[in-house]
């Protein structure tokens, strides 16, 4: 397996001289192709900042992030937009669907922006919606469907351009437990059948238990790492809860 993403010693500061806050403090890790990685931590631990830097939405203060051999911390804004378009897929807590477009059109637009042909687009959309079970709501608008369906539409959109990495920021945050479970199973399918590389930020231990590996963040540093290995999901969940108890068990925290 190739080493796809290397995060080297990155730091992130916010604020001015007197009010300087260190949000990320010398974090380094690697993500392999086809991995399903989770990042856990309490609020304010820096997990969303880390995700934003990985997703090129925010710049680093120091350090480097390599996708294969490309260092995205050195790229110009226009190149970054291109990079995002070709390599990244996003799934957010609040879905980020366009309310004026139907479910199908939301997926089409992501591909149309990449100048793909009509035939290509139609074919991909068909395949994706079948796989994600949203074929019967294609012509509905986001406000007409449930949160779980919206999030699956967001998944389809993230997958549409076969990205190198899918970044998910608290994807189950706005979903009920049934929809959450369905979505996480979708993630598993995406990871196992489509070999998508997924990086998911969450503070929910149940969601995290679907990952293959979990990085625990505290005060901007990685303080622990768990691999699922051959353990069952339930065993992995109890391990996660053990680690969490070390941090005081309170992830919803401050």
């Amino acid at each position, binding site marked *: 397996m190739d080493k796809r993403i290397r995060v080297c010693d990155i730091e992130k500061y916010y604020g001015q001289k007197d009010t300087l806050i260190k949000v990320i403090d010398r974090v380094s890790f690697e993500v392999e192709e086809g991995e399903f990685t989770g990042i856990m931590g309490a609020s304010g631990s820096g997990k969303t900042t880390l995700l934003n830097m990985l997703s*090129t*939405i*925010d*710049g680093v203060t120091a350090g480097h992030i390599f996708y294969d051999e490309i260092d995205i911390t050195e790229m110009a*804004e*226009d190149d*970054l*937009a*291109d990079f*995002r*378009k*070709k390599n*990244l897929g*996003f799934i957010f807590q609040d879905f*980020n*669907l*366009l*309310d*004026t*477009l139907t479910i199908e*059109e939301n997926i*089409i*637009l*992501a*591909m*149309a*922006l*990449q*100048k*793909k*042909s*009509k035939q290509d*687009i*139609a074919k991909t959309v068909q395949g994706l919606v079948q796989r994600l079970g949203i074929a019967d709501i294609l*012509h509905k*608008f986001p*406000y007409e469907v449930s949160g779980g369906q919206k999030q699956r539409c967001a998944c389809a*959109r993230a997958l549409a351009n076969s990205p190198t990495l899918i970044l998910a920021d608290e994807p189950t945050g706005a979903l009920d437990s049934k929809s959450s479970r369905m979505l996480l199973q979708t993630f598993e399918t995406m990871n196992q059948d489509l070999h998508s590389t997924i990086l998911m930020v969450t503070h929910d231990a149940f969601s995290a238990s679907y990952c293959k590996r979990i990085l625990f963040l505290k005060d901007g540093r990685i303080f622990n790492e768990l691999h699922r290995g051959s353990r069952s999901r339930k065993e992995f969940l109890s391990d996660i809860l053990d680690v969490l108890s070390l941090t005081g068990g309170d992830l919803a925290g401050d």
Partner: protein
Amino acid sequence: MIEKLGFRSAKNSFSDYLIYIVTMAMIVALMLSFNSLLFSKEIQEMSEMFGIMSIILLIATVFIVFIAAWLVNYMIVFSFQRKSKEYAIYMLLGMKQREIARIYLIENLILSSISFLAGIVVGLFVQQILMTIFYSMMNTAYYVSIRINPESLLLTLFCYAVCFLAALLFNHRKFRRMNIRLLMNQEKENEQITDKNYRLIKWLFPVSLLFILSFLIYVLSDNYTSAGIFMGSFLSLIAFYMFYAGLAAELVQSIRKRRAWIYKGANLFVLRQLSSKIKTMRFTMGTLSILFICAFMGMSVSMMLNDWQNKQLEENFPFDLSIHHAAPSYSFEKEKSEIEQFAGISDSYTYSIYENHSTLFNDYFYTHLPVFGEKYTGQKNISPDNKYDKKYYRYDTFMKLSDYNTLRSMLGYEKVSLAPDEYLLQVKQRITPYLDSVSDLVIPTGDGKLTFAGYKADAFCQNGHNGADYLIIVPDDAADEMNLYYSQLAAMTKQPAAKELADHLPDDEAEGGMEAVGTDFIMYSGNIFIKSVAIPDMKYTLILLYFPLVYIGLVFFCTALTVLSVQQLSHASKYRYRYEVLRKLGANNREIDLIIFKQQALFYLCPVLLAAVFSAVIIYSLSKKFIISTGVQTRPLQYLSISVIFFLGIYLLYFVATLICFKRNVSLKTNV
């Protein structure tokens, strides 16, 4: 606390509604400057027609107040919807309806006072520009003096207050019925996204478009009747409203059919934004189109009048003085002594016009000029039965060659000569295209006949004085056989005659009134033409007509543009979110800029495009009529293109301002 909230709310709205505030300020400025025309002492003294001018300006002001009230009402409803969630929270916290209404009132009071004060300041300058234009049109020097006329200020304040009070009263019930659940939901209602029930609506688009197009073809055909035009215009208004309801459906249909261009770049995004916006605003869009049409029409018509004034007026008054008397041989002794006393005579000539009891030429013009259309086709001896239409004299009008040459030399034209059996036509320039078969006309005389030798179209005072539209010049012998018809005096004066002269000259309508005045569309008629009095009077009358037209046109146009701008600039957070999503999907800054431009341009073009085509056709047809009836040598499209260029400037100004603000709005939080 309530005051503080209202004040803060006004501060927050200020930048969102800047374009609205600027437009209201501009309306105030225009209102103030036109009102100051109304109350200007100098202008009151300048002409007797001042009374009519004030009535016309007041009517224009009523229109303006009406449209401004509509704009204010629109903004009140709009900002209420926008703020509804905020008000719902206030209510949840236990605030009373009355207190919320007060917050709202304070906010509106602050914003409207700002625009009023700004308007007054700008108005002082606009007033000077307007006065300068007015005086230069009247050929009088104007000295700039900035001062506020209390009456015009009060009238402006009154009109402005009426706009607001009307709008606030209109929305009073809205406050009384405030309900937390409704308020919470109202913000969501701003844009309608559903696309159901299109089976019926989709017919609106082709049907209304077809109707408008066929009406335009009807207008272009030149075979229209006024009833047809009236009905057609009325139905077109309805069709405009239907058009926008249908257009939104049509756009959604084409998106649904997944045509190939949907798959290109951000087309899908742009079209969906546009269609939901048009759908929400379908009624407003119709109104905006109609405002644009009014603006285009008003401007073009005033352009026509101005052009006529510049080109034709001088031509109608070649002599400094021309006096008509119905008696066959009148001496004009009294008139001459008055003129000598008031202006000094440098040259004068008394002469008679002749007739031979025939209507040969009258019949020709009644049947050949487009002004009369098909009304008299195939008829003979028309004029004696039409003494009330005052177009032509009862009989054809003739002049002696020697008189003609004397008058020509007074005007500095070359003399002409005629063979004993020839006649010459002296006509208005406008008549010349219709003289093709006039050469067939033969005038019988005692011992033979006169044949056509040609025509002259020099300016010759032909609105009833030297004939109506035309005059037949015959050799002196031939004229001697005819009857004397009426008398004329033409004079050149040493200095321009003042108004007092007109008051001293006898003008006995009962005894000496004119029988005919010719077929000019706009004219100055009377027994006495004094160039130095008539031209300013005529100009004044025209200014009366076209100043209010420009005034209304400008206000309508800016009102329409403001509604468009405000629609785009509010809901900044909603748009920012949408463009954020596009950015996350990988659209770079250049692409985002292009998408914003496309969205804005389409939205801005939407109400103006059809309105422009519609008014273009109507104005083209109107200009053709105008040129036929006034003889102004202009291409029909000239009026239209000038007003289009003028409005395009204002339009671009609003468009660019909106675009810049919009970009600033949606790029507020991007730190990528």
